[in-house]
């Protein structure tokens, strides 16, 4: 951190530097959101500052504060001069600060994360999408009013255009299991000879997938039930025949 950087900024921007602090040696200034990009550009381009190394950009939520709700916090350093400075600005909920992407392209993901976590949108950002969370996420988790134990609703399958098949696939759907379609090539008459390569081909290509254990079990139970029913029917018929002559 550097005192010289802060005094340079103060001499250049004058009243636009709203506040400055050096708590624990961290030199920081505060500017208005309308000067946000100007200050950043000056930090990068000025010969005495040369802040060409982007360090971090983040936000802090102060929901109880009157006026602007969020703080944007920018940290940059200079490789040559080895000094750092922290710049903060206040952003009201719903207003859109300008993006810092043209100044340091490292701000790209940082701003995407701020949008993701705080819901602050940046003007002219090239690619403002959620980055850590998924698109269907409801709310902005690092805002103080987002309860930490809040559950998110289940999300249905994404409706992707052109995606017609969804798992589970049937036997004849989805990806083929081999690159070579042997059954096509070996089908009777496929290679122009007019005859089957082997008589057992029909046997091989009959049923593809073996019945699963549960299906086998169900089939066995059904078979058993049918047999028991049949036996009972036969027994009843025999008893009926036995009883009939005795009455007669």
């Amino acid at each position, binding site marked *: 951190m550097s005192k010289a950087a802060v005094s340079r900024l103060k001499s250049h921007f004058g009243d636009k530097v709203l506040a400055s602090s050096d708590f624990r040696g961290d030199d920081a200034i505060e500017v208005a959101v309308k000067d946000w990009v100007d200050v950043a550009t000056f930090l990068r381009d000025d010969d005495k500052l040369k802040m060409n190394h982007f360090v971090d950009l983040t936000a*802090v939520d102060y929901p109880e504060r009157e006026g602007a709700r969020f703080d944007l916090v920018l940290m940059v350093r200079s490789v040559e001069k080895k000094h750092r400075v922290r710049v903060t600005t206040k952003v009201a909920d719903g207003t859109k600060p300008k993006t810092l992407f043209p100044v340091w392209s490292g701000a790209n*993901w940082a701003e995407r994360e701020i949008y993701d976590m705080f819901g602050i949108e940046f003007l002219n950002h090239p690619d403002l999408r959620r980055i850590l969370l998924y698109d269907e996420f409801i709310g902005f988790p690092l805002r103080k009013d987002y309860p930490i134990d809040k559950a998110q609703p289940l999300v249905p399958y994404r409706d992707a255009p052109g995606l017609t098949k969804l798992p589970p696939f049937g036997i004849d759907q989805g990806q083929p299991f081999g690159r070579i379609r042997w059954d096509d090539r070996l089908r009777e008459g496929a290679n122009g000879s007019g005859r089957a390569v082997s008589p057992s081909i029909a046997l091989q290509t009959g049923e593809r997938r073996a019945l699963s254990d549960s299906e086998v079990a169900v089939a066995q139970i059904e078979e058993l039930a049918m047999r028991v029913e049949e036996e009972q029917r036969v027994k009843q018929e025999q008893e009926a025949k036995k009883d009939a002559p005795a009455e007669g």
Partner: protein
Amino acid sequence: MELVDEILEEEEGALELPADPMRLNMGPSHPAMHGTIRMVLDLDGETILNVDVQPGYLHRGFEKSCERGTYAQVFPYADRLNYVSPMLNNVGFALAVEKLCDIEVPERCQYYRVILGELARICDHFTCNGASAMELGAFTPFLWMLTVRDWIWDILERETGARMTHSFGRIGGMAFPPTDGFKDDVRWILPRVIKVVGEAETMLAGNRIFLDRMQGVGGLDQKRALELGVTGIILRSTGVPYDVRKDHPYMVYDRFDFEVPVGEDGDNWDRFACRMEEVRQSMRIIEQALEQMPDSGPVSVDDARITLPEKRDVYSTIEGTISHFKLIMEGFKPPKGEVYSFTEAGNGELGFYIVSDGSGTPYRIRVRPPCWYNLQATREMLIGDMIADIIPTFGSINMIGGECDR
């Protein structure tokens, strides 16, 4: 060639290839993707036209979770940021809170932190280089290098009780003083690690396949690297000698004599070589720290508002019980204010931006994960390369999901 040309002339459009770029989805669950990360690639043949890197599959809400406990309860979370070198994160967070409170830990603790941190750094570099080699088909160097990690983990286990997630840092010190055999243990592995560094380099640096896949692949321009916020090995491999230990010395790093290795081209090979050289420099630091470290003395600041009392006092004195209760239930209360503290972690500048409102719970903790900005630069490194180059490039970035996605 002639034959193909003839065919092309004879049958117009017979060998017409599809000209549209193909979209390929890589990850999130891919064996060569360290952790879970998704890349959507636009390919022209095998050449990468565009990449959309999509992190976030390991997002656990670190920063949100920190806002509900005490400062001391952040240490286990900090362990799980970069789980390959958890000690560096522990120390980094401890230093941040200490900066906020303006306290300095005893000298013995500073040396102890340096030695443990450098051991963790060696571990981190070896794991990354070994995994990179393994993904390129060289399995032996991987096991060779992980042997070192095991030696280091044995030492860390003796010191902290855990092999991986130590939770050993405390605000104002460390959990326990060094064990009696600590210095001897570290001195035992020093020559062996140096030997393994040499052997690993011999195995890989003369390997044509390895060189071909590393040299000139995944290059990054110096100016772009700075703009993108890249730090650590990746920045140094482009030729910028930025090391937090050297440029903004913290703890006792200004007392040691060590070099900062830099590369030239910023390609995979430079990153590999820088890591290897940095292991050697870490060994130098450890050697000097072992010499200078006092054998006795406290490892925690003597302040009942910060340091937990000894267990013996907790169970036998009323002052100890009250102090313990207050520190556990309310947490210690740093002054109001905000600080940004940064250290050199395994992958680069690990920063903690802490906003305190004067209570025992952090108002906001922002981690500046080095991986996050290094991963952002991956797009620039990959565009123009072939699809097979993703594996060595992504391996040499050493993206750690726990740190990147938090």
